[in-house]
């Protein structure tokens, strides 16, 4: 049976309306290496979920399934009421345009200036005039306090500035969902706070639903509504950040090590 037919005939069961992301029994392997082994995750509208875990535990692999950069070996990925893992072509494009993605490296197009990076997306996906696009770009850059970088190339920016420009680019089409892949990795503590508070503001001021994956506890402390801990291909602890921190799972205890409050 074709996937579209399955959705239309109701054979598949979409999540409730207030659940924007619903990942069910997700399995993913690369060769013999089993990375995800039955991950279940729900994110409600307007909330900020954080997936914690050590390096190489499959956190990035998990969120790449939400925009179908990867397809699961088994399981379902529901995003905005649609099976993201089954979508193709224009339908997949439409879903992707509802999602902003902040990559670990920022992934700014290095042959373009900051302005061109943002205009490249606006020009192709909106019918705005040149003046309107310029106004939108400047508004976004002002929001991340980097309007002075508009004509600079990514190579001329600091790590923190690159992340903030990448964030501005990711929200330029006003997505309903934001995915953050290690948003603060490699940044100094001041930049970590700046980027983390921007992520928090985005959720509070614009009602954006988000999933962030990180192993940065300072960032997690600032942005988390609901925390999950990924280990051995499964979410082994879920709840508030405090609840996860007090989990009895040995991997979680080892990860947090010392008292989180002492870090802040």
């Amino acid at each position, binding site marked *: 049976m074709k996937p579209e037919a399955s959705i239309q005939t109701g054979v598949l069961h979409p999540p409730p309306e207030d659940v924007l992301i619903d990942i069910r029994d997700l399995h993913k392997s690369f060769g013999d290496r089993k990375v995800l082994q039955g991950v279940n995750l729900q994110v409600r509208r307007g909330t900020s979920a954080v997936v914690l875990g050590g390096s190489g535990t499959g956190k990035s692999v998990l969120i790449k399934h939400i925009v179908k950069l990867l397809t699961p070996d088994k399981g379902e990925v529901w995003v905005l009421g649609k099976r993201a893992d089954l979508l193709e072509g224009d339908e997949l494009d*439409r879903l*992707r345009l509802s999602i902003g993605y902040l*990559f*670990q*490296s920022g992934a*700014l*197009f290095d042959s373009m200036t900051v302005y061109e990076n943002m205009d490249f997306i606006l020009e192709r*996906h909106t019918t705005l005039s040149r003046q309107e696009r310029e106004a939108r770009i400047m508004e976004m850059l002002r929001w991340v306090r980097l309007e002075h970088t508009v004509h600079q190339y990514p190579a001329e920016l600091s790590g923190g500035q690159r992340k903030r420009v990448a964030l501005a680019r990711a929200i330029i089409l006003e997505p309903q969902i934001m995915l953050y892949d290690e948003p603060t990795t490699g940044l100094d503590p001041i930049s970590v706070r700046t980027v983390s508070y921007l992520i928090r503001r985005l959720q509070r001021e614009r009602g954006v639903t988000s999933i962030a994956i990180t192993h940065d506890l300072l960032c997690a402390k600032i942005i988390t509504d609901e925390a999950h801990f990924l280990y051995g291909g499964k979410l082994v602890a879920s709840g508030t950040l405090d609840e996860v921190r007090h989990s009895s799972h040995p991997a979680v205890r080892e990860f947090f090590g010392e008292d989180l409050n002492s870090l802040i």
Partner: protein
Amino acid sequence: MAFEARESIFWELVERTGAFAGFVAEFFRRFWRPPYEWKELINQMDEAGSRSFILIAVTGLAIGVVLSMQSRGTLIRFGAESVLPSLLALSVIKEMGPVFTSIMLAGRLGAGMGAELGSMRVTEQIDALEVAALKPFNYLVVTRVLACMIMFPVMTIFTDVIALAGGFVDSAINLNMDYRIYIDTALSSLRFSDILVDTGKTVIFGFIVGMVSCFLGYTVKGGTRQVGQAAMQAVVFSSLLVLLADVIVVRISMLLFS
């Protein structure tokens, strides 16, 4: 152990060949469908054309002068120096021009495309295009392959003209050959089908160089070391495949036009 290693290399080769076939099929599935990235196509044509011009000019000049110098002595021994323009025209237009141009462009463009797309892949820029629904295959691959297919014949004509001019300079200096005799003799030895087929075959060479280089860059996995390897492999494989394709095209054209 050695057998297992050989078997593993064999299966990797089969897998990569299959992936390349899929990549080529994707090109034919997408190149005629929107979005049409005209601006990027022109940028890439500029890269393959005007920015390669000096390289191509020097190559053409060297071919013409060296071929003329090498052939002149032998032809004089047989009293046949008058056929030098014909010999130059046939050599340059039928073989030297198309192949040398394609190999030089494979070196310059192949390495550039392999490295550029490879570094875009490892820094997640291609993923960023993908999740922004910007069709990176159309933007990055289709434009580069089409630019190569359009610009290889154009650059080959440049090479041919400059090589024949270089041959004339050498002939004029050493044989006191008049330019009217030179042009007349050179052109009289050529048929239109020679020019058409032998310049036209560089469309295929351009396709090969563009496709192979884009494939190796676009599918890089790993880090900077793999990007460097992709750039190097792009030059090696595209040059070898150009030479192989030349043998096949010449054989077919001889069957069709001889």
